[in-house]
């Protein structure tokens, strides 16, 4: 007695077996010789394995692609910086996800927040401890000019009173995109730097 499966098949079971066997036969027929190992470039001419570049360019490339910020965030812009560090905006895309607790291992000082005169000597000291070459981004209205606290008795009117600033990022606080744009501007600035000619000046 024939048992119906209740379904209409395009191929019978026998035909399916034959098709599957044909695939194996085809692959086996096409695989009689081993594929050569991808090492033929080892024997190629030296000219295809040498990259010519300027020493300036390669040094600047290394520097701008691995800027490590020091942890020095005196006030509230730090929270905007934290979101830049986080997965949503992800500063690590630009080679600077490594925050350094020691200024001696850092290249970049991001001045996230209002600076009081009482705190100013400590920020100055952190900047002095950073190894050359080093850069500073003034983040937010307070970092640029003291912001709304400019006329206060205890607020430094702009970080450029105590450290040289390379890039100013306005906003109160700046959007994370703005800080990322400022970082990219600094990277462009570093790319133009001359390390040997002109006494190290761009």
């Amino acid at each position, binding site marked *: 007695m024939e048992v119906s499966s209740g379904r209409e098949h395009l191929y019978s079971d026998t035909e399916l077996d034959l098709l599957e066997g044909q695939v194996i036969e085809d692959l086996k027929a096409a695989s009689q010789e081993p594929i050569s190992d991808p090492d033929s470039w080892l024997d190629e001419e030296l000219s295809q394995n040498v990259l010519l570049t300027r020493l300036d360019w390669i040094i600047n490339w290394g520097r701008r692609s691995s800027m490590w910020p020091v942890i020095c965030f005196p006030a509230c812009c730090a929270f905007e910086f934290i979101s830049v560090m986080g997965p949503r905006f992800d500063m690590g895309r630009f080679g600077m996800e490594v925050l350094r607790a020691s200024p001696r291992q850092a290249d970049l000082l991001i001045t996230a927040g209002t600076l009081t005169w009482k705190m100013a000597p400590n920020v100055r000291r952190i900047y002095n401890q950073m190894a050359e070459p080093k850069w500073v981004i003034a983040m937010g209205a307070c970092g640029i000019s003291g912001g709304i606290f400019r006329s206060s*008795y205890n607020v430094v009117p702009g970080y450029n009173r105590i450290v040289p600033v390379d890039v100013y990022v306005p906003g109160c606080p700046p959007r994370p995109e703005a800080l990322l744009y400022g970082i990219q501007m600094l990277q462009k600035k570093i790319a133009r730097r001359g390390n040997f000619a002109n006494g190290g000046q761009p």
Partner: protein
Amino acid sequence: MTTSLLTTEVAKQINEHLPGAVVETTDAAILVNGNSLLDVADFFKNTAGLDFDYLTTITAVDYYQYFEVIYLFVSMEHNHSLVVKARCSRENPSLPSLVSLWRSADHQEREIYDLMGITFEGHPNMKRIVLWPEFQGHPLRKDYL
């Protein structure tokens, strides 16, 4: 929730033990004589039923003619609170320190000294806390420019 004590009843208790200490009583606070502030505070801390074991806040106000210092006492045991005020003149801005009773008064009295220029007698370390020692003047006074 912390309930605030009735100022009139507490003022009555103070008057029984320390006559002349209370200057004025309003719904919100008890104004005490500056000279007897330390005695009143000691009474608050060591009287059964009051037991103010926690001094949460001290602030100061510049009213041009005089300064007013405001203390907020809380009892963790009974979960009640009380506001006490004391005044000092502009010519002699000085009040007794409460550090000997509550250590929480330490930094707050130093901050008031720093920004308002009120000296707290008996404070173990009466120096500036927010600003640096060479700073001239007291910035939260109304006549500071």
